[in-house]
């Protein structure tokens, strides 16, 4: 496979605040023209990282690169940022405000007007141009915020919880728009708790917990790595025959009856048993209808990974306690 072109890279980022470490040696790289899911529980350090990318704060150590160039003020105009805490000037008119934000991003008045006309038409909101923000509903304001994030055709889009506050219809609209933007060349960093949408649209992910990156890579590979040699087997025949077909090397996790002599079972292979061997033995006793590897959902992976880290941490603490006791 050809080496991917990397649009964004962060190397060994450390960010400390007075009482805690927000980011501890975090590195991520985001391939060009992909959607990158930045995941993690609340307070993990996602927003800190996003603010560093937006140059709202600076890291204590580590470097950030865009297109191989060290991050600098010029990059502001190629980044579009939709923060989690977002809003608009309530007393300002919609159009005026969008023009203002566009110019702050470095667009000329003319460019801004052309781009905004396009987006306002697309989202069917051109009638709101002269309305004040305070007259709009929350959902309407969200649309405008999304537009002001993408209006300057940013190469890098950073969306922090973009779906919060949207109804399912608008949420879908935005989701499709994000995908379209990627297909047109944009690179997207998406921070969200919504694992469903991660699975749906992300290409790569990084999971941050307790200021460290604990998981990362292509979403498929991550999922593979969490798959635990479990298979769903649908078969017709006798349950007892199924259970007795193979003597060792597997465990039954779950079994459901679908119809008369028709079952679905989740089995886990253990002791280095291979699927082929298992199936060979099984085929003589029941009629196998389908075999599927069990792939965990992102939700499961998220919870699993964070619990694993917690366990590991507790073990470490126990170990240090023990050594202290020994001393």
């Amino acid at each position: 496979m050809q080496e991917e072109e990397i649009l964004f890279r962060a190397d060994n980022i450390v960010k400390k605040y007075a009482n805690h470490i927000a980011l501890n040696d975090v590195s991520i790289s985001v391939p060009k023209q992909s959607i990158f899911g930045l995941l993690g529980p609340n307070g993990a350090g996602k927003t800190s990282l996003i603010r560093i990318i937006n140059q709202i704060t600076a890291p204590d150590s580590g470097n950030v690169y865009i297109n191989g160039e060290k991050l600098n003020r010029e990059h502001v105009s190629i980044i579009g940022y939709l923060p989690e805490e977002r809003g608009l000037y309530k007393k300002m008119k919609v159009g005026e405000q969008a023009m203002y934000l566009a110019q702050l991003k470095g667009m000329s008045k003319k460019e801004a007007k052309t781009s905004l006309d396009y987006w306002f038409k697309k989202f069917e909101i051109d009638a709101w141009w002269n309305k004040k923000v305070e007259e709009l509903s929350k959902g309407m304001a969200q649309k405008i915020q999304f537009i002001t994030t993408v209006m300057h055709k940013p190469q890098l889009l950073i969306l922090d919880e973009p779906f919060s506050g949207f109804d399912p219809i608008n949420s879908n609209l935005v989701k499709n728009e994000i995908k379209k933007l990627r297909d047109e060349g944009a690179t997207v960093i998406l921070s969200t708790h919504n694992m469903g949408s991660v699975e749906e649209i992300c290409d790569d992910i990084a999971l941050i917990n307790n200021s460290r990156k604990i998981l990362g890579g292509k979403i498929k590979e991550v999922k593979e790595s969490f798959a635990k040699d479990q298979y769903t087997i649908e078969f017709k025949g006798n349950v007892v025959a199924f259970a007795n077909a193979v003597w060792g090397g597997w465990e039954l996790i779950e079994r459901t009856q679908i119809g008369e002599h028709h079952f679905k079972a989740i089995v886990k292979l253990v002791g280095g048993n291979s699927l082929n061997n298992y199936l060979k033995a099984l085929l003589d006793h029941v009629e196998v209808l389908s075999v599927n590897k069990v792939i965990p959902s992102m939700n499961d992976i998220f919870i699993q990974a964070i619990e694993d880290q917690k366990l590991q941490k507790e073990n470490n603490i126990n170990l240090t306690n023990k050594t202290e006791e020994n001393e």
Partner: protein
Amino acid sequence: MSKIGLIIGREYSSRVKKKSFIVMTILVPILSAVFLIGAVYLGTPEVKDLKVLVVDDTGIIVDDIIDNQKNNKIIPKTAHGNIVDDPDAHLNEKYTFQEYEEVANGKSADDAKIDFVENEKYKDCDVILYIPKNITYSKVVKLYYKETPSPKALTYINLLVNESIEIASLSNYNITKEDYQEIKKKITLHSILYSDKDEKDTRTAIKAGIGFAFGLMIYMFIFLYGVQVMKGVIEEKTNRIVEVIISSVKPFELMMGKIIGIMFVGLTQFFMWVVLIGVLTTVVVPFVVPDEYSPMFQAGTQTEIQTSQEVGAMIEPELQNTMQGNELLDVLINETPWASMLLVFLFFFIGGYLLYGSLMAAIGSAVDSETDTQQFMLPVTMPLVFAYLISIMGIQDPDSPIMVWCSQIPFTSPVVMLVRYSANGGVGMGWDLVLSMFLLVITFIATTWLAAKIYRTGILMYGKKVTYKELFKWLKY
């Protein structure tokens, strides 16, 4: 740089377009013009026609009184010698004196009092002026009235009678009229401050008062617009737009853009006021107010009085009282160095505003709502209020040590220095002024720097009750 320009532009235009701004800008000059006109009107009480019935038991003085009054011999000659510009000249036309002819028939004051009420001939008289026979010894004349006459009328009558009696009795003392005029000339106490080889006229309190008015304006503007800066920051924070904006511009640019934008709003308002007040007082007032009451006219008059005063002419002390108000106008128009005064005003306005505005921005960034601002507002507003109080006291003694110190300390100098500068007429304040300006500049750079540090952390902090300790930590981030 162009981005900070955009921010300044937005802050400016969004405020200038507000209804409240337009209303304030128009209403304040109109109100102050109304007050000014009102003050002049009240300060110059209306002179009513007055008919005086003179009951002269001596039988000699009444003719002199009527003659002196008709020919306007007394007041102009003794007071200013210039009839045309004398605001009191018209009194001669307003007052008429009539002799009580029944005196010849042996009647006197008691009869006059009855006639004064009942007799058709004397009914229209307003007061009875009774001169008893022994006037030259008793020195008492009586005035009976139906309605209280104005103080001005009383002064006038007193003066008229006094001088008429004196002139009438000259022959008793072998004094010629010329000698009398010479004796009557009074000295004028013209006090002049001598220091640093500079002679300073001491209408100092008035000048200090004018300076105080400027200082007060700065005080008000810092409060009004400083609070606007704070509110603006809180608004951006609670609207949650601030993070969007600082992903495009630096927090420092956003903060300075806001402070400077609002400063221009303040300056716009100030110049609008100056222009509107100017137009109102020069164009509108003369149409509304009769000439002799208009401030311009009175100030003009005052100048000539001033000149005549300097060449040694007399001024009656009673009349001086009525001129107190006019002296202010005279100082305003003739003795205030407007150009340099305005420059000093602008400098200290901008300097003081930037100093306090940046602190207000820092406060706004540290809180979630206006109700949380109090604990931080107090230490910021205290020196300003202190400066205001010091200045009020300093009007009487503008160069007292505390005034000198407070005009150097940057937290108080924007108000106090204006009083001192104006009191001294801008004279002899070289190093004093320069040092104060220098300190102000240094300090506002320092506070802006500190405020920016608090600001950039504060604007992204939500839902946290901030303490001073916390703010101190932010300085180190």
